[in-house]
């Protein structure tokens, strides 16, 4: 019997590849095409420096997108991540002002995000409010709390170490020339990019190799079936929202650290970018479908588009139009895939 299976396996595998990876392949192709087009238009686009800049800009959307993907796979949506990002940054900033060292203060900020996520999960599963409404409420609440705590004023003078997470980089090579400006041989890999990489790998591992990941897919695929199979559906959902909140908190800390200032009105509409990244990457808002690598490609597409259009001198308004069209096209491709 074992031999028989081995014989059948390759055929099944190629079949799966053609059906499941079709969307990812088309997204990757889109990304490659965009990079090609932009580097054709502007020589400065296709450089290590600019590549790292794009990655740096993508890291915040990427972190939000990973949490969003988990939530979307359960069949939900998290509209609160942009506001939770701002609240988490605010909590970190206030903690530092209260005399707590930077690292624990950031941990407190991330925990504040996780707490927002827990409230989302609790309201959705125990009070049976639809995810759209529950997280819309949290979006307003978290933003309001952030603005109330700070009086809508930015918190600055948080010390140099606060800026390290957002502005530092690994493997930075600088040559001393004797002049005022040292020559930068290699700008280094920014910490946010490394962080995104670690979180993405951890997220993919969680979804693919762990029981909770399997349960996240099952819950989104058929909630009733999952419940009847003994899956703790409520706990699974709460887990996804807590993770989304915590990652929004992490993204908030990265973003505020990059600015070295806490801005309570940062992150407006970021939730839509995160949703767009997940959807471009093949996640289905109906639940049960999606993966981290797809979302990373989606986030990269948005990052490359923004950066490339900026360098080409296209206005921010046109950028919105283009990204909107990309989102619709991505879902259309998904539809075609499902119809086949």
């Amino acid at each position, binding site marked *: *019997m*074992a031999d028989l*299976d081995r014989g*059948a*396996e390759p055929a*099944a*595998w190629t*079949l*799966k590849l053609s*059906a499941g990876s079709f969307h990812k392949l088309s997204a990757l192709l889109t990304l490659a095409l965009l990079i090609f087009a932009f580097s054709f238009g502007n020589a400065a686009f296709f450089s290590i420096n600019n590549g790292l800049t794009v990655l740096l800009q993508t890291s915040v959307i990427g972190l939000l997108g990973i949490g969003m993907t988990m939530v979307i796979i359960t069949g939900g949506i998290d509209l609160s991540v942009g506001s939770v990002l701002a609240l988490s940054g605010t909590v970190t900033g206030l903690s530092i002002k209260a005399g707590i060292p930077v690292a624990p203060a950031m941990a407190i900020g991330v925990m504040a995000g996780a707490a927002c996520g827990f409230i989302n999960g609790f309201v959705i599963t125990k009070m049976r409010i639809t995810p759209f409404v529950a997280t819309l409420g949290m979006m307003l609440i978290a933003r309001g709390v952030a603005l109330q705590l700070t009086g809508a004023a930015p918190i600055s003078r948080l010390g140099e170490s606060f800026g390290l997470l957002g502005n530092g980089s690994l493997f930075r090579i600088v040559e001393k020339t004797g002049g005022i400006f040292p020559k930068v041989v290699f700008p280094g890999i920014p910490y946010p990019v490394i962080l995104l990489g670690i979180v993405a790998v951890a997220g993919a591992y969680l979804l*693919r*190799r*762990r*029981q909770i*990941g*399997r*349960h996240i*897919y*099952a819950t*989104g*695929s*058929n909630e*009733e*079936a*999952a*419940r*009847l*199979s*003994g*899956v703790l559906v409520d706990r699974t959902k709460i887990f996804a929202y807590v993770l989304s909140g915590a990652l929004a908190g992490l993204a908030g800390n990265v973003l505020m650290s990059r600015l070295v200032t806490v801005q309570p009105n940062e992150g407006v509409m970021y939730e839509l970018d995160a949703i767009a990244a997940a959807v471009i990457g093949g996640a289905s808002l109906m639940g*049960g*479908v999606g993966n981290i690598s797809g979302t990373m490609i989606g986030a990269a597409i948005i990052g490359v588009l923004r950066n490339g259009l900026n360098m080409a001198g296209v206005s921010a308004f046109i950028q919105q139009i283009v990204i909107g069209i990309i989102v619709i096209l991505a879902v259309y491709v998904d539809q075609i895939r499902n119809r086949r």
Partner: protein
Amino acid sequence: MKPDAQSATPLVQMDSIEKHFGGIKAVNDVSLDLYPGEVVGVLGHNGAGKSCLMRILSGAMIPNEGTIRVNGEVVDIQTPHDARDLGIETIYQTLALADHLNAPANLFLGRELKTRFGNLDDNRMMAEAVSVLKRLNPNFKNLNDPVSSLSGGQRQVVAIARAIYFDVKILIMDEPTAALGPSETAMVGSLIRQLREEGIGILLVSHDMHDVFELCDRVIVMNKGRKVGSHPIEDVTKDDVLSLIIKGDLPHDWAPRSQKAVQ
């Protein structure tokens, strides 16, 4: 093959079970027992309360009144998990499959096999799934595909495999042959006989009189939330059962058919 009903302890004893939604009594003072190696048909109209009763036993619904005994001991079934721990497995009419997952993932859903490090052991789950699915249907090949792309019969096989793979003692089958073709129906029939030989108690919810008379040792008929009859299959004809289902009563001149034959 015929169970010796008097000597053994019942596998399941449901006593005066009640379930109401608002003012409506979906299940009204129903008692039911099931012995090892016995197939009991549960019959009734749509909305007669038979699905409700089955859902109570499988942990998907909590009764308002009544006690459930398994092997003579009172048990408290709050969740599907509790029921499974007692060896009660259910094949739902809707099959209860997660469409986006493949067959092994569905088979082990909620009871995933893990490696030493707590990771999912997909290789072992696949190997186990292959062996159990091939036993039920030798033509089962596309185990890696999401179950949404499988045929109705194959999906049914996955649902059945999920119920019998684990240590099942009491099997609830809700319309197991409704979506199946003739050969697959025959397969389910022979499977039921085989499980009965192994001493498993089976509750078979079905609309198909032919199946019921073919497979069951006893029938229980429900009407408007009440149990209106419980008879050994030799004592009734199809017409008697239909009368119970529709009117909630046996024909006036009814006497147990097996005794009549003797007279």
